[in-house]
């Protein structure tokens, strides 16, 4: 591409982009700095982007917080179990749905059913009552079974499967492989990037979900981590029925900003660990799903 000679425009763009990047990170950096600061500076607003009176007391108290670790464990369990269920269901649904209606009569009926389930829902109350009547409250299954079918992932993988050359499958069939074997030996191995994308989608979804944990888990020890944080940090804000600054200060100080910052940071760690993969596969997945004709 040929560029104009306008260096000053270039510099302005670099400057603006740098500022935007800085402001995107600033809230997280500020929270990180607070989490490593002393109690007094953290509470009195002296911390910007570098810890003041550096210490690890907040992190030490997290290590002693049994509930935090229990919730962390629930979240891990949920991600592993829910991710596995999502994976199996996605693969098993995407394959037959990627067949044409000629090869698989009934394909379109299934497709419309799946789409309808994605677009229409009975609303919160009937959904809650269904799970309640199944006796799933306070069980890990309440977090992984209602979310067992990730319709968006199914569509994404189905579109990917459609792009796989027919000859491959025909060759496998000639060699006597049935649908199950073809799926396991041909389709799954050559779809690894697409499978990585949908798996990451479901892992992030499970890790970040808090609302189902909040309404379906009545006992603290069953809360996933996001619900734990929601209940301990956010709910203080959400009950503030006052505009009196002194009262607000009192309520805010009841939930220690220092400790909360540290908890927020720790719960970000798993996402940060898989972030390089997220960036790589999510981007390709979004483009894959978006520019499909």
């Amino acid at each position, binding site marked *: *591409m040929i*560029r104009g000679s*306008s260096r000053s*425009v270039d510099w302005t*763009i*670099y400057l603006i*982009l*740098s500022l935007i*990047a800085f402001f995107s*990170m600033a*809230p*997280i950096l*500020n929270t990180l700095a607070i989490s490593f600061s002393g109690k007094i500076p953290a509470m*009195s*607003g002296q911390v*910007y982007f570098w810890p003041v009176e550096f210490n690890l007391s907040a992190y030490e108290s997290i290590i002693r917080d049994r509930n935090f670790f229990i919730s962390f464990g629930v979240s891990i369990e949920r991600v592993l179990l829910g991710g596995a269920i999502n994976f199996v*269901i996605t693969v*098993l*649904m995407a394959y*037959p749905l990627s*067949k044409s209606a000629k*090869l*698989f009569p009934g394909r379109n009926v299934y*497709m419309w059913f*799946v*789409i309808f*389930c994605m677009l229409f*829902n*009975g*609303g919160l*109350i*009937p*959904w809650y009552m269904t799970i309640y009547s199944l006796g799933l409250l306070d069980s890990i299954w309440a977090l992984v079974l209602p979310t*067992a*079918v990730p319709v968006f992932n199914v569509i994404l993988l189905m579109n990917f499967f459609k792009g796989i050359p027919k000859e491959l499958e*025909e060759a496998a069939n000639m060699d006597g492989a049935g*649908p199950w074997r073809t799926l396991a030996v041909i389709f799954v191995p050559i779809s690894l990037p697409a499978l990585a994308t949908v798996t990451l989608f479901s892992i992030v979804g499970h890790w970040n979900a*808090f*609302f189902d944990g909040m309404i379906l888990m009545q006992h603290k020890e069953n809360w996933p981590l*996001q619900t734990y*944080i929601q209940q301990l940090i*956010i709910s203080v804000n*959400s009950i*503030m*029925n006052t505009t009196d*600054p002194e009262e*607000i*200060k009192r309520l*805010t100080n009841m939930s220690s900003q220092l400790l*909360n*910052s540290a908890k927020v940071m720790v719960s970000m760690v798993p*996402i940060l660990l898989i*972030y390089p993969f*997220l960036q790589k596969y*999510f981007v390709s997945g*979004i*483009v894959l799903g*978006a*520019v*499909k004709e």
Partner: protein
Amino acid sequence: MNNRSFIRHYHAMLLPGIAFLLVFSVIPMLGIVIAFQDYQPTLGIFRSDWVGWENFQYMFDLPDSRTIFINTLSIASLKIVVGMAVPFVFALMLHEVMNMKFKRFVQTIVYLPHFMSWVILSGILINLLSLEGIVNQFVQWFGGHEIMFLQSNSWFRVILVASDVWKEFGFNTIIYIAALTSINTNLYEAAAIDGANRFQRLLHITIPGLLPTIILLATLSLGNVLNAGFEQILNLYNPVVYQSGDIIDTYVYRAGLLEIQYGLATAVGLLKSIVSFLLIAVSYMLAARFANYRIF
């Protein structure tokens, strides 16, 4: 050689997924009959009294329902407009960057908030916007009075839109960037030979090249005009800002699960589901007709 006997295997493969959808999507759909009942948990669906349209009547008579409806529409529309414009401008700027390292560095940073939950981001925002938070430190530094951002009806929507942009703008540029790379580079070369300057090339090549994408995104966003962002608002609001920030979803949650008015909450939720469904169906049809876009 596709064999007819394969078909029953296809059905078998779909069985588990369809079963889950039946239990967790279709059965709740049947539960919408509660909207027409004076539902009592102790009596259940089969023995609760039928009240016809009473729940809907009650809903329209509620003084809050106008506020909630207007809040939902205005917050969602603001988010749609700002949420499309910011990534657009950002993608255009990013497109001008020739230094690949710098480009990738900026992208890595701005994508990050997308992957964080609203719980985490709200935890950060509550810290940031508190009376001792860094934002108020700057406000005071410039000589202003400390502002109770999350307790202020005039600030609350601004915060909702701004924080939504913060979370999603980076990620939403992906689709524009994909569209930008598909613009034929010969066009730029030809324009440069004809003496078009940088701004003219932007105006006559880049923006027209992005137009189909913009139209497609605008059409699809129609399905979101009733989705003002439940998780975000639930984590940021409080009774003081119900007036400017209470939306249909948060109302259904409070009325249904906290105040146990099952019939009313189901009726409100049902109305929203139906309208949303129609809007999405229309937007998909428009997208299929005018942009040749199909998701399945």
